[in-house]
């Protein structure tokens, strides 16, 4: 089992779109996939028409594996399950803080699912919290959507700095360009500049597209309702690139 996190310090960069469409693509590639919606907003859960999870008992000696398993829901697409968002996630950091080995709790939980899934995708909330550090320690790859803007570039640099300060393996960070509008000159300039600064950038880039916003209307992954649109093709290419990295790993 490999764990892929869709993560960014910054909000509104396309993390949930990535999680939803990557999970769907993995499932289409024959991988038994679990999408874990860690964001209390529950957007990924909403896209799959799944109700939110019962409140997890977050207090105590550790996060409960049986509760976690009970909360898993099968999506409409065989081979893809969802661990829905829970209102309890609001208190995730407080709960983790009270636990022993508080930075590795998520890894322990995910290890218990290893026999059931080939791939787990974590849809992460923005921020650089204790939950984020759990995510860094649990993930095999950290996929970071980067809008080609100055602020996005800055938050990417902050993530690398955090990894360096906490002696985390920065090679797991794989940024890619998201919500790209090549009609904006700045997007073009930064897409030429940032990979020089951060060589781990993936080749695939996802365009800014109305179809991504329409996911909220259809409540399905883009590939499931408009498989030929540029964004759907971009996510497919991205998933192939990520799977190739996984194979090499």
């Amino acid at each position, binding site marked *: 089992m490999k764990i892929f996190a869709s993560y960014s310090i910054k909000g509104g960069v396309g993390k949930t779109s990535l999680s939803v469409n990557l999970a769907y693509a993995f499932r289409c590639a024959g991988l038994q996939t679990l999408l874990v919606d860690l964001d209390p907003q529950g957007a990924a859960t909403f896209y*799959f*028409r*799944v*109700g939110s999870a019962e409140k997890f008992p977050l207090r105590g000696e550790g996060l409960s594996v049986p509760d976690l398993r*009970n*909360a*898993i*829901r*099968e999506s*409409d697409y065989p081979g893809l*399950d969802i661990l829905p968002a829970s209102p309890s996630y609001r208190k995730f950091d407080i709960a983790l803080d009270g636990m022993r080995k508080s930075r590795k709790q998520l890894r322990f939980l995910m290890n218990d699912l290893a026999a059931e899934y080939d791939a787990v995708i974590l849809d992460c909330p923005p921020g650089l919290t204790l939950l984020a550090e759990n995510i860094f320690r649990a993930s095999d790859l950290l996929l970071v959507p980067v809008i080609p803007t100055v602020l996005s570039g800055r938050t990417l640099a902050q993530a690398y700095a955090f990894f360096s300060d906490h002696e985390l393996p920065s090679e797991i960070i794989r940024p890619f360009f998201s919500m790209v509008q090549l009609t904006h000159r700045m997007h073009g300039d930064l897409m030429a500049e940032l990979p020089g600064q951060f060589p781990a950038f993936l080749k695939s880039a996802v365009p800014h597209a109305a179809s991504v916003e329409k996911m909220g209307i259809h*409540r399905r992954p883009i590939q499931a309702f408009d498989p030929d649109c540029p964004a759907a093709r971009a996510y497919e290419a991205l998933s192939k690139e990520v799977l190739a990295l996984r194979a090499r790993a």
Partner: protein
Amino acid sequence: MGSLWIDVIGPGAMGCRVPVEVESLRGSLPMGFVLKERGSQVFSVEILDTYSWGLWGSGQILFRCNASLTLWSQGNGLVTGQGAAPAEGGFFWWNLRESDFREALGEASGIRKIEPVISLEIDRREFEVSNGEGKVVYRFLLGTLRGKEGSGVGIFQGRPLRGYVQEANLCTKALETLCSEETPQNLLEGLLADAGITPHSAGKRPKPEIDPGLPSAEALCRVVRPALELAWGNESGIIRDTDTEFLHEYRVGLRRARSALALMSGVYANSEVTLIREQLGRMASATNRLRDFDVHLLERRNYEQAVPSVLSPAVRGLFDGLAAERAAEHARVASALLSESHQRSKTHISGLFLLPGGLPPGEEAEIPVGVAVALRLGRRYRKIRKLAAPLSFDAPESELHALRIQCKKLRYLLEFFFPLVPETSALLERPLRRLQNRLGALNDAAVQREFLLDLSRSRGNELRSDHAVAIGALVGILHTRGAAFRVGALRALEALTTPSLEKAVRRSLARPTNL
């Protein structure tokens, strides 16, 4: 390997009424739930098995859809193996590509041909139920299986989605009206029955129920009747000629009936028994030549591999010729089996064993069978020991053959009347089987050798020179093989006739069970 159809009978499948009326279900679903048909497909599927239902007997059913085989476990409804096969007709397990699946088929089918038993049409319809959010919460399959006869059977397969237990319960309750308690296995059996097919009928060896106090005449009737049924049950298979085992079992049935009558001589009037045995003997010997051909042709692969490659074409040619002769011989046997006189003989003989009293009693008719069998077993075993004592490695084949016949008689006695002498049976079964296997192999080698020599003599100058060389090579191989079996047989004979075993057998026979 496309086998989408198999999930219709997967774990948890249940029978349902036919025809399936899905439309009526919509109203019975909980408020806000929506039923949608996702698609349907029709598959043509065959069930395959050996003539003796070896796969069915081992708890499995083999299906073929196009050229794809699926082995299905009757116990848990799981697929236990898959592989590719010829798209139509029968095949042997060794015709398949090497794989674990092939080995599994080999175990269950042995030397028997795997053949289509029945063709089915499977109509597979897939449904899903969504909740008020439009989220799928329950799926189910409805399959209709039809043979050529009858209205077919329905199968329901519910597929709750993970995390939607409550919704699944609601749906299952609504769909309950469709279902029955039947399992897919029962339904398949029903389909076979509709087509007039009963698994196990052809290959089942009879096991009569006998207790030691039963008068011998009645007990013997219970042994002979199923033996005759075994023989008659294989006749249609011989005529169809789909597997050589039909003939083998036919001959076994006849031999068992004849042997039982001979072994229990004195139970019925001797004059009648002699007549019946002669009739049965004629029926068996009418198939001798066909069986000889079969024995040879079954060994064909081994023969082709045993000779130097330079002789392979000649051996192939020789066997092609034998196969053509066998076809003519089979036509003769089939026509004899279909003849009115044969049918009349069968009806007459069967009638004699329908009820005790069908035959005039002999002087031992009323003796309790437990006593009669114990006496005969002791006599047979002593006779074998006597025949075995002077035998050495270079004993003439006729003496070994006589020993084999005695062993066969002893084995039949034990088989027919096993429940009466469990202790003796336990003592003798293994050493006797080992000896018989070796003597049987020795005899087969001798018979095959003689058959080939006869063939070369009967053809005289017409025999092609390369075929003559091939026969020479094969006779040599059979001779060497026979010598090896002879050593094994003599060792097995020693084990069967040790003084300690003799003492134990004598003791066991001194107290026949429950008398």
